[in-house]
């Protein structure tokens, strides 16, 4: 093994350690169906401050941002309304505005993110690589904003 090659291996190892350290504070995200840890490597996107904050806290900082919520509605209209309906009232896929969840973990923002990022049964394929993680958070903020169910079941409301 050449010296140059050794260096490359060493720096690759270091990078892996550093990135593992950077993620040390992150929550563990798991696929809704598989239960396996979601893989965030290889995404062609730069994590926004909101995504970084969400990964550590499970709290979606966009939930109270009116401007983002408005943009989330537009994203929903193209990425999600085809199945979930114009106003998330349910169509080919279930309603997202009521308090019934096919996967109960979707009552938390962490759970909903896991379902969107990693996919679920049926036509709910993983949105990984189709939407950026920041766009997923924007869409989630709009979905939460149109909630019509029991306030006590809104587990994503943290304060």
């Amino acid at each position, binding site marked *: 093994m050449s010296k140059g090659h050794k260096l490359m291996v060493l720096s690759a190892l270091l990078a892996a350690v550093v990135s593992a350290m950077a993620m040390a504070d992150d929550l563990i995200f798991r696929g809704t169906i598989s239960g396996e840890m979601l893989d965030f490597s290889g995404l062609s996107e730069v994590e926004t401050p909101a995504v970084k904050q969400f990964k550590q806290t499970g709290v979606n900082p966009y939930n109270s941002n009116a401007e983002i919520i408005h943009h989330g509605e*537009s994203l929903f*209209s*193209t*990425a*999600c*309304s*085809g*199945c979930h*309906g*114009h106003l998330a*009232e*349910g*169509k*080919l*896929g*279930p*309603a997202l505005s*009521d308090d*019934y969840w*096919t996967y109960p973990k979707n009552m938390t923002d962490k759970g909903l993110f896991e379902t969107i990022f990693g*996919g679920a*049964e*049926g*036509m*709910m*394929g*993983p*949105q*990984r*690589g*189709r939407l950026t993680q920041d766009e997923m958070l924007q869409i989630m903020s709009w979905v939460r904003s149109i909630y019509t169910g029991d306030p006590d079941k809104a587990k994503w409301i943290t304060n």
Partner: protein
Amino acid sequence: MKSIITAAGFGAASLALTAMFPAAAFAADSLEALQANSSNWTMQTGDYTGQHYSKLSQINTGNVKNLKAAWSFSTGLLHGHEGAPLIIGDMMYINTPFPNNTFALNLAEPEKIVWQHKPKQDASVKSVACCDIVNRGLAYDDGRIFKTQLDGHMVALDAKTGKELWKMENCDPAVGSTITQAPFAVKGKVLVGCSGAELGVRGYVTAYDQKTGEIIWRSFATGPDNELNLSKDFNKDNPHYGQFGLGTKTWEGEAWKIGGGTNWGWYAYDPKLNLFYYGSGNPAPWNETMRPGDNKWTMTIWARDVDTGAAKWGYQKTPHDEWDFAGVNQMILTDQPVDGKVTPLLTHVDRNGIMYTLNRNTGSIVQAAKVDPAVNVFKKVDLKTGLPVRDPEFSTRMDHKGTNICPSAMGFHNQGLDAYDPDSRTFFFGLNHICMDWEPFMLPYRAGQFFVGATLAMYPGPNGPTKKEMGQVRAMDGVTGAVKWTKWEKFSVWGGTLATKGGLVFYNTLDGKIKALDKTNGKELWNFKMPSGAIGAPMSYSYKGKQFVATNYGVGGWPGVGLVFDLTDPSAGLGAVGAFKELQNYTQMGGGVMVFGL
């Protein structure tokens, strides 16, 4: 040799080139020879005519009551199993929904899998499939199996070993383009289209060289004439259908680029005329207010030269669609007397509820009859102009909720393969009987995301005996439009029908029964409840002198997508699948093949 070449970006620039290299003359077509032997079931449509008819008569009206399950095969997958297995000699080839596994069985020993092909696909393509993750089956020719993958690939396998021979990216899932269609093998080529009009994908049909996977030609449904690949005398027999420049002029600005018109249905081929026939699908988005104009050539029956792809004629059934009546349904070729003269005909039951019979040489309309009087979007089709006469009460537009519109977006007929009995000159149509409410909304276009813009509710149509029926099998005369008999069903007859020389009409029900009717009166002579509902049509073959009827089962497709809902979800039963909520009380997901014999 295995080559993976990206072809999705293959543009019209190459069309001029390919036109200079006419396809080589092929010797006796092996597929045609196989079709002539009714022991085989060589293609999804039965044969090139698309008549979906078996000349076998060992199972007949007298003994069908003794028909029993002979053997079965589980594919190990759930979701909708459209299409049917193929039989080539003593081999059966089975295909599945995503991830599109393929199995080869030897009929001498069906309990053992000879080979299996299991492609790896990125699961994210599931979320850009419009209506379940179905696949409509395989094609075969000259020792090769041709299959499509949801992720947009067209693949050739060695029929003996299952080894991948070549693989081409035909449709780009990054822009929402997928494949659910069965490929069509003809004259050394294999034809295939794409799905994705719900995501604004521009439609095209492509011919690949069976041996190498190279593109021979590609023809679009919208855009400039050279990309539409129109012949010089396009529509010369019916200039009022429209001729040149309309693939761009009938759109606002460059909307044709994201205007849909994908074809994912069935092809038919006339060797004498050297023409093949198919339908282009719906324009995008569904919201009609966002795309003024006729939106040519979406919703069109095309007749194209199989060697060059050049269009001889095209007839747009639903100019400026308002209801998602995608025009991709089966084309059935028959020769029947019209005004005393045997005429080459093409019959097509459209989503819009009209049965069209055209002269397949010229494209001239012979008949355009409603398959059920409930059709209300059109009062009739003017046979002179070819134009439908609309009833404005059932049109759709922004800021208006249309109600009691018939047919629903699913159409009175969808992807099912129907049969024609040449002896009695009768078609047996498997139909939907579903109407809808429709309310459009505005949305932006984003590549790779849905471009629909309408909210729908569906419910049974008005004409069933108890007003709750959503399906029927209807025997009709294609030339006169006369109805001979009707057999109502609780749910849509989604998969279509098979007619046999034994005087029988076989079909599957969504709740999981395979049934046999007497072709003369529609009387039910036999049925069998399968493990899950079925959305493909049965087929028939014989092995060592014994006739069998076989079918895929596995409920799903557009009517079955709601089965992933929990019954307790209050929103289950809303929207486009609401009409099928009750299906959950009859069947659950499953997937496999059932074979029946005496």
